[in-house]
C-alpha cells in the first residue's frame, strides 16, 4: 500500500473526526477533553523531577546551619541566625531570628533588607494566615511588625509559612541554637543513598499512578466507539476494505489525540498556574517549578498520538467491522481467555525472580519492577472485557430495568469494560501499594519511648532558665494541666575535687513523682532511689551509703585548680528525713539517684538551679491547648523548641513517599472521575434515540434510570472484584520481594474499593440530570 493511500485514509479518518455537525463536535470535544486531561497529568509528571530539584535547590540555598565546629570570628560580613521553627495547628512554620553583625552581612535568599529588631519579613502565606481572624494566638507568638515579604527565591512553595525576624543580642554559646555564618547555602550537598525498598516504592507509585492515566487516554480515543463502528460499517458497505477501514479509524483516533494534546497543553498551563497558587496535602510549589523537562514532554507529545493509533489498531483487530453493521448490531464473538491471561502472567514472571530479595541485597531491578507491575495492571484491561462477557451471558432474568441493562451489556460489553478499566487499574494499584505500605510500616517506624498519654509536649529552652517559676508560667496558661520542671546538678563529698560525686535532680513533688514512686511528699523532702538508671550500675547502694542524714556534702563542687571552673560550692547537710524509694520503670527521663525538693536545698544553691526544659501535660478538652503552651514557651524564650510527643516516629522519606502517593492518587481519582463522567455522558448520548423510543411507548423513567444504573454498577462491581484480585496478588508479591510477611489488610482493600465505588457513585449521580433530560420523546428525531 502506497504511503499516499495511507495518508489519504488517515486524512479521511481525521475528517470524520472533525466533521459531523453538533454530534460530531460533541464527541470530538469529549475525546479532546479526555485525552487532554490525561496529557495534562502526564506533563505534570514530567515536571516532577524539576519540582524536586527546584525545591532542593532553594532548601540548599537558604541552608543556615553551621556544619563545622569552627565558628568564624565576628566580622563585617557575619550574621547570627537561630532557628525558631514552630507549628500552628498542623502546619509547620519555618522561623528564623537574624542579626547582621556587620555592613556586609548577606541577606537571606528572597529577602530584600534585614528586618530590624521587633520586625519581620514573612512569606505571603504567613502574611495571609496572620491576617486571618482565628490566628490571634499566632499573632501573640510572633509579636513582630511585618515590614516585608519573602520572595520566591527564598521559599519552596507558594504556600510555605516562613518568616525572618530581626533580633539583637543573640548569644552564641555552646548550647544555644544560634549560629554565626558568613553566607547561606549548604557547602557540599551530597546525595544520600536511599533504601532499596523505598526506591521500589517510588517506582511502584509512579507506575501505579501513570497506568490508569494511560488506560484512560486509550479509552478516550475510543469515545463514541459504537457510532464509529456503525460508521465504519457503512464505509465497508460502500467498499472500503478492512485495511482501509482500520487506517480510517486510526486517522480518527489520531485527530482526537492531536487535538487532545493541544487541549492538554492548555489544561497543563492552567493547572500549572492553579497548582502554583494552591496547596495539596500540605505541599505547595511555584508555577516555575512545574516546567516539564523538554525530553519527557517531547516523549509525551509523540507517545500519545502513536499510542492512540496503536490502541485503535489493536482494538480493531478484534472486531471485524462487517458491512452488515449498518443493519444488524450482531453480538460480538465470544472473547478468548488464553491470550488475555498472558500479560498478567508475564508480569508475575518478571517480578518472580526478585522474591525474597529484601532490603539487604542491593537495589531492585528497575526495568523488571516497572515492566512487571505495568503488565500486571495492564492485564486487568485485557481480562476485564472477558470477565464482563463471561458473567453477563449468564444473567438475564429479572426486573425490566435489570433485563434492559443485561441485554445491553451482552451486546456491547466492550464499551462497558472500557469505561471501568481506568478505575479498576487505579484501585488494583492502590490496593497493592497500600498493602506494601502497611506491611513495611513497622520497618520505617520506630518507637520513641515517649508516652503521649503522660506528656503531650516538651519544651526545650535555648539556654538555662532559673528553675523557680518556669513551670508556673505554664500551669497558669489556658489548656495546661500540669508542667513538670526538673533541674540537674552535681554534688560531692568535698568542696573541691570531691572523691565521691554524683548528679542530683531537683523538682517539686509533682515533678519527682514522674521519676519515682513516692509514698508521701512535701516540699523539703529528700529521696534516694534504690536503683539507678545511669552508668550501667543498676544498684544504687553506694549513693544510699553516701547520703546519710547529717552528712555534709557540697552542691556544685569545683574541679581542678582552675578558678574559671569554680562551682557554687554550697554546703548541704543531708536532712534526717531522707528516704529510700523505688524508681519508676517508666520514669519521664533518665534520673539521678538523689531526688530533692527545692526547700530541702540551702538558699545558696539557688543560682545553680536551672531548667533546661519543661514537660507539659495538656487539657485535651481545651481547644488550641497546644497553641497556648507554645505561646508560653515563645514568651519565655523565643528560641525555645517545642515538640509534641508521640509514641512512634516515621522515617521521613517513607512519609513523604506516602504523601506523594496520596497527592498523586487525588489527581488520578479526579481524572478518572472526570473521564468516567465523560464516557457516561457519551454512552447516554449514544442511547438517546433508544431511550426516547422507550419513553415514547410508555417505559417509566424510573425503570430506565435504574437500567442505566445497573448498566454501570455491573461492570463496576466486576471491575472492582478483578481489581481486588490483581491488587492483592501484586501486593503479596511486592511484600514477598521486600521479605515482609504477607498479611491481608482487608481494611485497606475495603477502603480502596470503597473509594473507587464512591467515585463511580458520584459520577452516576452527576449523569442523572442529563439522563432525565434525554428521556423525552422529542429525542427520537435527533440523530
Amino acid at each position, binding site marked *: 500500500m502506497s504511503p499516499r493511500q495511507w495518508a489519504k485514509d488517515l486524512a*479521511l479518518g481525521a475528517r470524520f473526526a472533525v466533521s*459531523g455537525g453538533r*454530534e460530531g463536535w460533541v464527541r470530538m470535544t469529549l475525546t479532546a477533553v479526555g485525552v487532554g486531561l490525561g496529557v495534562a497529568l502526564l506533563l505534570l509528571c514530567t515536571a516532577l523531577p524539576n519540582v524536586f530539584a527546584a525545591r532542593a535547590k532553594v532548601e540548599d540555598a537558604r541552608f543556615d546551619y553551621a556544619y563545622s565546629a569552627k565558628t568564624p570570628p565576628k566580622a563585617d560580613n557575619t550574621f547570627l541566625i537561630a532557628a525558631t521553627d514552630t507549628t500552628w495547628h498542623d502546619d509547620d512554620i519555618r522561623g528564623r531570628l537574624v542579626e547582621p553583625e556587620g555592613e556586609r552581612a548577606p541577606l537571606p535568599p528572597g529577602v530584600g533588607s534585614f528586618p530590624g529588631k521587633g520586625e519581620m519579613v514573612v512569606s505571603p502565606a504567613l502574611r495571609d494566615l496572620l491576617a486571618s481572624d482565628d490566628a490571634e494566638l499566632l499573632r501573640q507568638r510572633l509579636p513582630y511588625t511585618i515590614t516585608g515579604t519573602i520572595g520566591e527565591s527564598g521559599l519552596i512553595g507558594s504556600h510555605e509559612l516562613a518568616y525572618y525576624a530581626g533580633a539583637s543580642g543573640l548569644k552564641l554559646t555552646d548550647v544555644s541554637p544560634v549560629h554565626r555564618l558568613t553566607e547561606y547555602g549548604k557547602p557540599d550537598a551530597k546525595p544520600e543513598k536511599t533504601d532499596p525498598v523505598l526506591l521500589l516504592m517510588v517506582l511502584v507509585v509512579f507506575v501505579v499512578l501513570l497506568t490508569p492515566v494511560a488506560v484512560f487516554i486509550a479509552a478516550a480515543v475510543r469515545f463514541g466507539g459504537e457510532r464509529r463502528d456503525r460508521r465504519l460499517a457503512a*464505509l465497508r458497505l460502500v*467498499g*472500503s*476494505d478492512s485495511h*482501509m477501514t482500520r487506517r480510517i479509524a486510526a486517522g480518527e483516533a489520531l485527530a482526537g489525540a492531536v487535538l487532545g494534546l493541544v487541549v492538554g497543553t492548555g489544561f497543563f498551563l492552567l493547572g500549572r498556574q492553579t497548582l502554583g497558587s494552591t496547596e495539596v496535602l500540605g505541599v505547595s510549589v511555584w508555577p516555575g517549578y512545574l516546567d516539564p523537562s523538554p525530553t519527557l514532554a517531547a516523549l509525551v507529545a509523540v507517545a500519545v498520538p502513536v499510542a492512540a493509533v496503536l490502541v485503535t489498531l489493536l482494538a480493531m483487530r478484534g472486531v471485524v467491522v462487517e458491512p452488515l453493521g449498518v443493519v444488524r448490531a450482531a453480538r460480538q464473538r465470544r472473547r478468548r481467555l488464553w491470550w488475555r491471561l498472558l500479560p498478567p502472567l508475564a508480569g508475575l514472571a518478571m517480578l518472580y525472580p526478585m522474591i525474597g530479595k529484601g532490603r539487604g541485597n542491593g537495589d531492585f531491578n528497575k526495568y523488571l519492577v516497572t515492566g512487571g507491575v505495568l503488565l500486571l495492571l495492564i492485564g486487568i484491561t485485557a481480562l476485564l472485557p472477558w470477565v464482563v462477557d463471561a458473567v453477563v451471558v449468564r444473567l438475564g432474568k429479572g426486573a425490566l430495568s435489570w433485563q434492559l441493562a443485561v441485554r445491553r451489556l451482552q451486546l456491547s460489553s466492550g464499551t462497558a469494560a472500557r469505561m471501568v478499566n481506568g478505575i479498576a487499574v487505579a484501585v488494583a494499584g492502590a490496593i497493592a501499594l497500600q498493602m506494601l505500605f502497611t506491611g513495611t510500616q513497622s520497618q520505617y517506624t520506630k518507637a520513641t519511648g515517649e508516652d503521649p498519654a503522660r506528656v503531650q509536649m516538651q519544651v526545650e529552652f535555648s539556654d538555662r532558665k532559673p528553675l523557680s517559676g518556669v513551670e508556673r508560667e505554664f500551669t497558669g496558661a489556658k489548656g495546661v494541666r500540669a508542667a513538670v520542671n526538673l533541674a540537674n546538678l552535681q554534688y560531692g563529698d568535698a568542696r573541691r575535687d570531691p572523691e565521691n560525686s554524683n548528679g542530683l535532680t531537683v523538682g517539686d513533688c509533682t515533678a519527682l513523682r514522674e521519676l519515682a514512686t513516692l509514698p508521701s511528699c512535701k516540699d523539703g523532702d529528700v529521696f534516694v532511689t534504690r536503683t539507678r538508671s545511669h552508668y550501667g550500675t543498676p544498684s544504687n547502694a553506694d549513693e544510699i551509703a553516701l547520703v546519710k542524714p547529717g552528712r555534709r556534702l557540697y552542691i556544685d563542687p569545683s574541679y581542678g585548680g582552675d578558678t574559671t571552673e569554680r562551682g557554687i560550692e554550697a554546703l548541704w547537710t543531708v536532712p534526717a528525713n531522707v528516704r529510700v524509694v523505688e524508681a519508676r520503670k517508666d520514669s519521664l527521663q533518665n534520673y539521678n539517684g538523689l531526688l530533692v525538693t527545692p526547700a530541702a536545698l540551702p538558699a545558696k544553691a539557688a543560682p545553680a538551679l536551672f531548667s533546661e526544659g519543661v514537660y507539659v501535660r495538656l487539657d485535651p478538652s481545651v481547644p488550641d491547648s497546644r497553641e497556648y503552651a507554645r505561646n508560653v514557651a515563645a514568651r519565655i524564650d523565643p528560641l525555645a523548641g517545642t515538640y509534641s510527643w508521640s509514641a512512634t516516629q516515621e522515617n521521613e522519606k517513607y512519609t513523604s513517599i506516602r504523601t506523594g502517593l496520596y497527592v498523586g492518587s487525588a489527581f488520578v481519582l479526579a481524572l478518572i472521575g472526570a473521564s468516567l463522567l465523560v464516557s457516561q455522558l457519551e454512552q447516554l448520548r449514544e442511547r438517546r434515540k433508544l431511550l426516547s423510543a422507550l419513553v415514547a411507548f410508555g417505559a417509566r423513567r424510573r425503570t430506565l434510570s435504574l437500567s442505566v444504573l445497573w448498566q454501570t454498577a455491573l461492570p463496576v462491581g466486576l471491575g472492582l472484584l478483578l481489581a481486588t484480585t490483581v491488587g492483592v496478588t501484586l501486593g503479596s508479591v511486592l511484600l514477598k520481594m521486600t521479605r515482609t510477611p504477607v498479611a491481608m489488610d482487608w481494611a485497606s482493600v475495603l477502603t480502596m474499593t470503597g473509594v473507587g465505588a464512591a467515585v463511580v457513585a458520584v459520577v452516576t449521580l452527576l449523569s442523572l440530570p442529563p439522563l432525565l433530560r434525554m428521556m423525552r420523546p422529542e429525542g427520537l428525531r435527533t440523530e
Partner: protein
Amino acid sequence: MTTSPPGSLLTAHDLRKAYGPTHALDGAEFSIHPGEIVAIMGPSGSGKSTLLHCLAGIVPPDSGSITYNGRELTTMSDARRSALRRSEFGFVFQFGQLVPELTCVENVALPLRLNGTSRKDAEKAALTWMERLEVDDLKAKRPGEVSGGQGQRVAVARALVTGPRLLFADEPTGALDSSNGERVMELLTEAARSTNAAVVLVTHETRVAAYSDREVVVRDGKSRDMERAV
C-alpha cells in the same frame, strides 16, 4: 446441478447458510443477467436478506458457489470483494446505510472518494446523481435532517454514483408510504435502466415487485423462479 444460464452476470448455486439451528439458506439458487431487474420475494424470515447479502459478498455462505462475471466470489479475498463493492456493486438498504456524520452530498460522493477520486470531482458527480433523483437541494443537510423518502433517494444516488453493474436493494421502500415508495422505485429503475445496471431487489410488496422483469420467491431458505402471468 443446473448450469448457469449463458450470459448471466451473477449466478449462485446451492447456497447454504445456517445461524446456529436456523437454516437461513438451504440450497438456494439464483442468477441475473446484465441490466435485468429481479425481485426476490417471500415471507418474513424466509432468507431473502441473507440471500442478498451472500450474493453481494458481504456474508460468506457456509457452502455453495457464487460467480460474478465468471469469477468465484466465495473464495475471493476481502480486499478484492471490497474493491468489487466499491466499483461494480451498489447498495440500497431499508435504512441506516448513510454515514450520519457526512452531509448528503458527501455521502453520495463517498464511494468515489474511496476509489481515489478528488473531492471536487466526486462531489460534482454526486450532485449530478442527486439532481436525477431530485434531492440536489438537500446536499448540505445531514442524514438526520432529511425525511425517510429523501434519505432513500440519497442512498440510491450513492449506490449509482460509481456506475455499478449490479445494484443490491433490500426493501428500499420498506419504510416509506406507497406514493413515496413508488417515486423511489420509479427513479431507481429509471436510473438503473439508463446505465444498464442490473438490480437485485428484495421486497415483500407486489407493487414494488411490479417494477421488476422477473420474480424469485424464497421460502424456507429455498428459491424458485415465478413465471409471470403476463
